[in-house]
């Protein structure tokens, strides 16, 4: 059965990558996608072989100043405030541009043309039998979505795919979780963890994606996350204790199920539970 399972959290550093990688290894997932293209880390833990890569292009406007008469219609139309026009000057703020193409369409002088520009790379390789696909957003590029879409479009049909999602709750997160059958939320049992978990639950409810929680660094913090999950009827699948050994293995770039094989079974069990919840 083909299943896509996203691993998300809202807050950064709660252990999304740890859960995604260890889960994928334990259940023998066919594919693991790293959609945190601003800070991709999955490949650091899995050392993929046979890596290939492809640039991602988006369209960006270029202004031909000779043709521009500074009428200002482009600046007025741009909904992202990416163009500034003065009496005899036009400036494009590339970091605000979403590449929608409206300015080029609207310019009466045909002074704006669109060109292709590389905004990042999609890469893929193999960790044993598992296909690993990840993306890297170029430095200074504002929009990770085209790179995330490119990562997802390289996904093969069939088999279980685990998707590691960026922190936050806005467009990059939505792009990554969109189309997933289920989402595992990795939460840290602290006030920060609870606040950001609630935000992320809001995103998933809006998208209609079923969810369950894994608590990481259990033992630190308080009961807030547990109580909230109980009130909201969101199942808690597993607790990973705050354990110096697990933290140390992560810091060295080693998935902890490789050194602590007793955890494999527990990840297999949560996968069974997830399948059960998906019906």
């Amino acid at each position, binding site marked *: 059965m083909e299943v896509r399972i996203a691993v998300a959290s*809202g*807050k*950064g*550093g709660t252990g999304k*990558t740890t859960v995604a990688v260890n889960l994928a290894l334990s259940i023998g997932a066919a594919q693991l996608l790293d959609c*945190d293209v*601003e*800070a991709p*880390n999955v490949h*650091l833990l899995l050392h993929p072989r046979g890596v290939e890569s492809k640039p991602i292009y988006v*369209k960006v406007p270029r202004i031909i100043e000779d043709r521009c008469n500074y009428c200002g219609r482009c600046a007025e*139309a741009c*909904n*992202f*405030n990416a163009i500034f026009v003065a009496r005899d000057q036009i400036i494009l703020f590339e*970091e605000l541009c*979403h*590449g*929608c*193409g*409206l300015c080029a*369409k*609207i310019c009466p002088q045909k002074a704006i043309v669109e060109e292709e520009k590389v905004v990042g790379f999609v890469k893929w390789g193999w960790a044993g039998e598992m296909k690993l696909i990840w993306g890297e*957003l170029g*430095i*200074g*590029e*504002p*929009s*990770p979505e085209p790179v995330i879409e490119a990562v997802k479009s390289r996904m093969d049909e069939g088999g279980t795919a685990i998707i590691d999602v*960026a*922190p*936050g*709750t*806005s*467009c*990059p*997160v*939505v792009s990554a979780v*969109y189309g997933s059958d289920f989402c595992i939320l990795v939460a840290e049992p*602290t*006030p*920060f963890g609870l*606040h*950001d978990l609630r*935000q992320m*639950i*809001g*995103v998933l409810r*809006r998208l209609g994606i079923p969810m369950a929680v894994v608590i990481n660094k259990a033992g*630190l*913090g*308080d009961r807030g996350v547990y109580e909230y999950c109980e009130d909201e009827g969101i199942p808690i699948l597993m607790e990973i204790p705050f354990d*110096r050994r697990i*933290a*140390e293995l*992560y*810091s*060295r*770039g080693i998935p902890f199920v490789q050194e602590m094989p007793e955890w494999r079974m527990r990840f297999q069990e949560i996968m069974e539970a997830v399948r059960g919840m998906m019906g």
Partner: protein
Amino acid sequence: MRQVVIVSGKGGTGKTTVAASLAALAGRAVIADCDVEASNMPLLLHPDVGERRDFKTRRAEIDPESCLRCGLCVEECRFDAISDFKVDPVKCEGCGVCAYICPTGAARLRPRVSGYLYVSETRFGPLCHADLLPGESNSGRLVSLVRERARAVAVERGLDLILIDGAPGIGCPVIASVTGVDLGVIVTEPSMSGLHDMERALSLLRHFRVPPLVAINKYDLNPEMAERIRAFCADRGVEVAAMIPFDTAVVEAMLRGLTIVEYEPECGVSGEIRELWRAVQELL
């Protein structure tokens, strides 16, 4: 007016812990929480909200009555947001291309509230912060508004420092947090991921010509890796201003809604954050 931003690349390295402590040490500063998707500063600073404004964005809508189903909008939308002549509000970025090309005016942009912008009072000074509603876009623009408001508040009250807590990553909200600031503090952690993501954050600061300073948080969870990060920084002439130890007191402070420098001023963490604050002041 001076502006200092706290960034990290990787999430969860301790940006907010460090930023809130710097705010406590600074005393006279405007604090800007620019992690609008996961705004945690209020959990430590308990803001008394004085001003709340709606953050409005626009989304396309198609009126089925006047729609000819010609398909032009579907073809021209770069965000794949229109299917079956309906707009997916989650995918729509509000660019307005559909409204512009629609021959009958059936596609239109409509404003809606996507979040809130606040100016609040805290025990360490004014806090400008925001909440982006779950799943909304345009976090970069909201960050720019938070910073604009912070500058105005600084001028009004004669404060000459703005402390900005940034978001994880290197994309639009982070870019909006770092442009035009005087100093960027990167909080990293001693792991492969911490090093990798710090490199990307350093490149971003360099790209926008922001001088960097590094703090290695929880360095003793892997002293060897911390040393590697320190050597990496030394090679590039980047100062590591603090080596902050791991201490569960940081979590205890968070549970009490306090910064660590208030909760346990004598602990190693607080000492290192004071070192960091000294380095920040020196560079400013």
